[in-house]
């Protein structure tokens, strides 16, 4: 059953004020276009969950979409501070809930697996446990030693960018696959954005590559370049220049407002945004092809 729709339609239908939203992607495949569309549609009071909030949540927080952040590392990866998120937290204007990366991904794994908790071994560092009542302990029934637990995270909406999907929502992902599968299975609604919508025969020619199956997907949106300034392995490079520039822009609230006006509110969709980036940027982010070795499944 085809679930194709525009990103605008998908956000209208599945993202509501007050929802917990997880835009997936560890550095790779971050669905920036979805964040921008949420900003354009003026969603409020969202709980934004991500291991690494990255620039996408810095921008959404700047635009006033967020009430709360759930995270495990707030930085501009490889650059430094995530200035807007940081100043909102320091000012006490944004609620937050904090884990280690392992705690965060374990919460997603518990949600995806339908488990009431996931155990983790002790790390000897107990301060996060002290300040976060969601981090608890349970006695291992075999050794009697204590293990650490986290509860499931089950976002209202998970948004996942992929290289290619069929119209039903079966999606191929390669390269860094951080927490995409766990977000998809833990979320109540899943929106897929894809660089390419392909015939289902392409997907079914390589079922081991399908991380996300149609049966958990609500909407499939064709959004090429959705991940910029993050990247899509094999399609375009990470825009490190933009990540460095954001460090400057985000120092100044006026500059942030101008940037949002120009690049989010001022464009109607990803296609317009991408064209506006211009041919020099396109050329800078272009990547030469390098193909995986052939894989023979056999005609059984």
């Amino acid at each position, binding site marked *: 059953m085809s679930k194709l729709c525009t990103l605008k339609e998908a956000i209208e239908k599945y993202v509501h004020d007050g929802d917990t939203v997880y835009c997936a992607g*560890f*550095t*790779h495949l971050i669905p920036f276009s979805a964040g921008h569309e949420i900003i354009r549609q003026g969603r409020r009071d969202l709980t934004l969950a991500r*291991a*690494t909030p990255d620039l996408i949540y810095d921008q959404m927080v700047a635009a006033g979409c967020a009430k709360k952040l759930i*995270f*495990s*590392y*707030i*930085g501009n*990866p*490889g*650059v430094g*501070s*995530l200035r807007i998120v*940081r100043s909102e*937290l*320091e000012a*006490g204007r944004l609620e937050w809930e*904090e*884990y*280690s*990366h*392992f705690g965060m*991904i*374990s919460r*997603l*794994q518990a949600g995806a697996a339908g488990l009431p908790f996931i155990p*983790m*071994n*002790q*790390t*000897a*560092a*107990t*301060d*996060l446990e002290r*300040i976060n009542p969601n981090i608890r302990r349970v006695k291992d029934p075999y050794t009697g*030693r204590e293990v650490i637990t986290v509860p499931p995270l089950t976002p209202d909406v998970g948004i996942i960018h992929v290289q290619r999907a069929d119209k039903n929502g079966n999606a191929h992902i*390669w*390269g*860094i*696959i*951080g*927490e*995409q*599968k*766990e977000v998809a299975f833990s979320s109540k609604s899943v929106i897929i954005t894809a660089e390419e919508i392909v015939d289902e025969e392409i997907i079914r020619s390589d079922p081991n590559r399908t991380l996300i199956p149609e049966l958990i997907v609500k909407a499939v949106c064709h959004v090429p370049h959705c991940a910029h300034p993050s*990247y899509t*392995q094999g399609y375009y*490079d*990470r825009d*490190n220049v933009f*990540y460095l520039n954001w460090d400057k822009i985000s120092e100044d609230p006026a500059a942030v407002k101008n940037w949002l006006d120009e690049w989010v509110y001022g464009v109607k969709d990803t296609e317009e945004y991408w064209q506006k980036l211009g041919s020099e940027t396109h050329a800078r982010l272009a*990547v030469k092809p*390098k193909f995986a070795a052939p894989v023979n499944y056999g005609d059984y």
Partner: protein
Amino acid sequence: MDQSSSLQYSASELMCVNAARLLRDGDVVFVGVGLPNLACNLARRTHAPNLQMIYEAGVIGARPSRLPLSIGDPTLVSGAASVCGMYDIFTLYLQRGNVDVGFLGGAQIDRFGNINATVIGDYAKPKVRLPGSGGSQEMAGWANRCYIITPHQKRRFPEKVDFRTSAGFLNGRTERDATGVRGGGPLVVVTNLGLLEPDANGELILTALHPGCTVEQVKENTGWEIKVAQTLRTTNPILESELILLREELDPDGIHLKGS
């Protein structure tokens, strides 16, 4: 042997070379970006060709052909031995005990090697909100050996950290041991002045100075009364060949090696 006495190098280069020398051939290293990444690549190109680099983004056996800005750069993937999800990286690799070395950093490192990367001041109303744990809490707990790279400044070496993001030896080695945690904890802190190592009680003491650095410099820049090892070593001089590798091949644009 290179003629190295007259070589000029930055504090970052000094730390990077000394960190590289701590790595052993065949080590499986959980790598962060920046200096640890450079140190690993330097080790691979010199004495540890079989070093395996693992990134928390889920990349195993990376062979980056360019210097990655972020820990999730696509160059880490192309040509890697394996890519897996985050849950697998933290369970099958780190928690299972398949990681020999973890590199750690943080805003504060205290007398017992505990690290703060979370907040300066009160947690609920922080003076400075730092990035938080990321993968470091588990790395500090479970990697067989941990190394810390950090500039030697008094504010970075307080007697006690404001928040224990990652465990060193807590209030002493027996306290860490009692938690049953599998990793060996911080083995060496590499600074721009020398090397700190835990003593029998897990307290960091000065064990080596870099050529030209003094005990006084170290004491002035440490927030507690740091002890000095009975036999204080001097680290081996930086080799010209190491600097050439770093400057011409590993970080030609000086992204991580510039400064200080």
